[in-house]
């Protein structure tokens, strides 16, 4: 540390001012390499000819100054300081042949390379950003007659679809109104039950239609079903020999009467 203070006194006034400016500005730096790059400018030489030793001194002075001013430096600034202190000792001391690893010169050369590369990237970035740019200097078509994606939606169906749909409707008809359908269908069995009960009371010829159950007269669908069922039941009863049936003419009313016992 005393070494550092000692080094500090070696700095020119200009350098010290620069270092203080850096410290005030420490938040504006993009890391230790950025600080080194800035410091290197004070040497006013080509980066390839930079004195890394001198640069290390400047950086260490910068860190010391920050400490004096009680400015908290981020860890990586301190890591760099430690590394530079090590580098400096390597550069100052005669090489120890027993020591492993890269020489001070190699380390210094790499640091110089890093600085030069960073500077090169900065210059490149500036040139890049300085180029003519789309939307600022040159322009794309403002009115994109963009490709119209003509989406033609065609609907299709196959004959099978059609047939299945129709079949579905017809099948559905059987299920949908199942109970209701029962309502409008008077089965022969029902008619037979009814006729068996009623037939005993019939004396003379009676119109078949009068045997239709209550509520099956008005609705044509129901009437048709009940008529057919009653007619079929009558035929059944005739077959059983319990009923006589007659019709005077085509389309004339069908008449029924109980068959006289003994064929009287």
């Amino acid at each position: 540390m005393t070494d550092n203070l000692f080094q500090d006194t070696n700095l020119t006034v200009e350098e010290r001012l620069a270092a203080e400016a850096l410290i005030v500005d420490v938040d504006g730096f993009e890391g230790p390499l950025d600080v080194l790059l800035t410091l290197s400018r004070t040497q006013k030489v080509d980066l390839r000819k930079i004195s890394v030793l001198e640069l290390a001194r400047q950086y260490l002075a910068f860190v010391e100054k920050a400490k004096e001013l009680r400015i908290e430096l981020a860890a990586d600034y301190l890591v760099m300081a430690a590394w530079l202190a090590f580098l400096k000792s390597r550069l100052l001391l005669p090489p120890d042949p027993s020591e492993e690893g890269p020489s001070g010169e190699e380390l210094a050369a790499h640091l110089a390379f890093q600085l030069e590369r960073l500077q090169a990237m900065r210059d490149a970035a500036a040139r890049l950003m300085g180029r003519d740019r789309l939307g600022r200097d040159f322009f794309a078509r403002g009115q994109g007659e963009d490709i119209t994606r003509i989406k033609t939606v065609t609907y299709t169906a196959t004959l099978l679809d059609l047939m299945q749909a129709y079949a579905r409707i017809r099948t559905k008809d059987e299920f949908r109104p199942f109970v209701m359908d029962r309502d409008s269908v008077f089965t022969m069995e029902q008619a037979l039950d009814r006729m068996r009960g009623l037939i005993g009371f019939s004396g003379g010829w009676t119109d078949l239609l009068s045997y239709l159950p209550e509520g099956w007269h008005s609705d044509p669908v129901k009437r048709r079903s009940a008529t057919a069922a009653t007619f079929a039941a009558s035929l059944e009863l005739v077959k059983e020999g319990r009923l006589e049936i007659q019709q005077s003419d085509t389309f004339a009313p069908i008449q029924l009467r109980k068959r006289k016992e003994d064929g009287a």
Partner: protein
Amino acid sequence: MNDAAGTHDSLFEAPPMAEQERMVEAVLFASPEPVTVRELENRMPIGCDVKQALEHLKGRYEGRGVRIVRVGDAWAIRTAPDLGFLMQRETVETRKLSRAAVETLAIIAYHQPVTRAEIEEIRGVSVSRGTIDQLLEMEWIRLGRRRMTPGRPVTFVVTPEFLDHFGLESARDLPGVKELRAAGLLENRPPPGILSGSDEDDDDEDVIDDQPELFEEE
């Protein structure tokens, strides 16, 4: 106004016409909307003869892939109409007809001419306007004769396009209910209470004209 611009020419160094043409070209190209002459004049250096530059530019693009066109009182660059096909990425999406549409279509095919009320009766649900419209639009159905019943409702019949699409010579070629049943498409049980359209009558040939009776009782 041109005259006014003309008198200014001597006072202001207007760019050469070729340059003015370039400017008009760039502005028309980059502008999101057609650009009026006034707007062009405002943007370009004083002393420019925008109208003349436009005429030059228009001539230059004659017969090319794009043209300088006038849109109202503004100007724009547009692709040549004969190359419109290049601007279209045709994607034909084939979708299945909805179930409602297929069913409605089937009923029309089997029962035509048929009124909407009849279709609804057969399907047991109401038929949306959209479904009918879609089928009309596809040209698979068209309006038939009006039914001679109260209200004179319109009827629907299938079209030659329909027959064409389904590979039928006539609607009579549609498999009857019997065949549907044989093919296992219909449960082997006669639908009670409903007249099964086309199987029992061999005079199915009259289907097209005679169906009306089927629906007399409404």
